[in-house]
């Protein structure tokens, strides 16, 4: 043991110990968040990936992704355990009439796939984001570029902030009262689009305004000094540079729009629907039809049917596909954003 002691000698002290403890807590908190995330994603991926991917070529379970939900019939037939979807069960019945005497259990939605839900969610996201972006960006341009700061504008901003804090179920009920009943649109894509759009509008407006503010003043002045009108300036020399930021905000919006169940529960979502959205007689009917949607389907299959080995496939599979789609849309937006950003940099 060295007895040498110098003026910078490290010594254990209460101060040091306290510091160590505090940093340990911070680290533990961070790891705990990580653990929760890993558990959620891990469970869904572990249990759900099997419904979507398979070991044999083409490695993708096309039935699950491209077909409508069916009931699953489970029965024992001549000592052999059979699990058949609705369609196959009927074919089987026709071929073996004596199957009617066998006791069979059936589980709804547990066979087939979730194609209509995927289509419905994609349609809901596209439509509502289009509406939210058009309304939101227009409002942001007005607030940031045209409106003079005054009491009214401050009030508008306050209203937008408050709107952001409204629970989604309230938006759902508002949409139900306003679009479904008052406008008479019934449970329809259109009602769902507007309800979801209103829900993400505050996010889109606030973020668009921030992105517009981030565009240097010099670009506006330079453009105006060349004889551009205010609108020409905004369209050619402000909006293009603000677009990456606006897209970033809309990524968050997409995840929310795709994931919310409450707003579409009353306005757009069907538990089950045989027809696909494009199977309409008239073009106008397209907007006035309800659709199946992933989040609502997750709600239905997780709360309305029993939990067992036969239903697990669709329960976790749906959640997995849902995560996959949100990730896909988000990735696409991020790629688009970075492309735009590379084009306009200052």
């Amino acid at each position, binding site marked *: 043991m060295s007895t040498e002691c110098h003026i910078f000698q490290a010594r254990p002290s209460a101060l040091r110990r306290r510091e160590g403890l505090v940093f340990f807590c911070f680290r533990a908190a961070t790891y705990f968040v990580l653990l929760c995330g890993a558990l959620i994603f891990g469970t869904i991926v572990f249990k759900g990936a099997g419904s979507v991917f398979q070991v044999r070529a083409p490695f993708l379970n096309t039935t699950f992704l491209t077909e409508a939900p069916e009931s699953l019939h489970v029965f024992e037939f001549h000592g052999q355990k059979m699990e058949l979807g609705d369609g196959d069960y009927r074919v089987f019945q026709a071929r073996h009439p004596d199957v009617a005497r066998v006791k069979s259990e059936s589980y709804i939605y547990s066979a087939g796939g979730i194609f209509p839900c995927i289509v419905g969610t994609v349609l809901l996201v596209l439509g509502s984001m289009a509406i939210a972006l058009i309304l939101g960006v227009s409002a942001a341009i007005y607030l940031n570029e045209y409106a003079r700061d005054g009491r009214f504008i401050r009030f508008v901003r306050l209203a937008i902030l408050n709107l952001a804090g409204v629970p989604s179920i309230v938006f759902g009920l508002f949409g139900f009262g306003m679009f479904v009943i008052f406008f008479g649109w019934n449970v329809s894509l259109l009602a769902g689009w507007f309800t979801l759009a209103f829900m993400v509008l505050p996010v889109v407006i606030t973020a668009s305004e921030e992105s517009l503010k981030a565009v240097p003043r010099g670009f506006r002045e330079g453009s105006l000094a060349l*004889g551009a009108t205010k609108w020409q300036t905004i369209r050619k020399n402000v909006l293009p540079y603000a677009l990456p930021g606006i897209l970033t905000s809309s990524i968050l919006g997409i995840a929310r729009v795709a994931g919310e169940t409450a707003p579409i529960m009353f306005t757009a979502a069907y538990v089950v629907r045989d027809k696909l959205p494009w199977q309409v007689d008239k073009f106008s009917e397209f907007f006035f039809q309800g659709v199946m949607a992933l989040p609502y389907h997750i709600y239905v299959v997780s709360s309305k049917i029993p939990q067992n080995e036969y239903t697990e496939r669709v329960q976790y599979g749906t959640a997995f596909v849902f995560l996959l789609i949100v990730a896909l849309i988000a990735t696409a937006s991020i790629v688009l954003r970075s492309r735009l950003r590379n084009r306009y940099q200052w």
Partner: protein
Amino acid sequence: MVTSAPSLMETRPSASVRHPTVAAPATGAAVAPAGATLVDIDQLDFFYGALQALHGVTLGIENRKVTAFIGPSGCGKSTLLRCLNRMNDLIDGARVAKGMIKIRGIDIHRPDVDVIELRKRVGMVFQKSNPFPKSIHENITYGLKLQGQTNKARLDEVVETSLRGAALWDEVKDRLHTSGLGLSGGQQQRLCIARALAVEPEVILMDEPCSALDPVATAKIEELIQELRTRFTIVIVTHNMQQAARVSDKTAFFYLGKLIEYADTRTIFMNPAHAQTEAYVSGRFG
């Protein structure tokens, strides 16, 4: 000349904003001889809200001459410059309370004046060079495209003449389609000048164009101003008195929002009439 002049900046139906051809280069310029007064500022009082920035400024800016505005910070020289193309309209609460500014005899605050037409004729170069984050080519053609010019050959021609006019052509001719932001500070400022030249203004306002540049880049801009003076009326705001002495024909000295003295540059620097001017140009205050 006077009879045809009012139409130059008059408010026209909205279509005028993008009329099909580029406006002919300042038709009247050939008539007005160099040295005749182009811009008349008469008893101008200007306010930012309750704060008076200019007090009764009267000044005539001569055609195809370089006029320098000098004075300490906050003396109103930039404010006056920005009045000339009504850039101050953008600032909330900024207003002309009294007096008027006439360009070619037309009061630019008259209600039938289209500020777009005004700014096409009175171009501006800013203190902080502000090339748009577009290619050099797009930067130059920005103003013309706004006016509806789509002829590619014509646009290419304007790009070349403007860049040559701004003494930038030889440096950038091989990379016209790369970003204007890839240029050096001095080149960026010359790009901004070229961009202003492209719309063929009569007057070019320069708001401390060299304040962010090194001496070499500054020298190039000053050289450029010497070349441009034969074709354009230039008004330059500068903090650098040597610069004013080098480039300008006439110099106006401002102090606390008042025009103290306005005379030939030589007179201002060699033989000023006012003690304040003398003190400022000799570096004793400001």
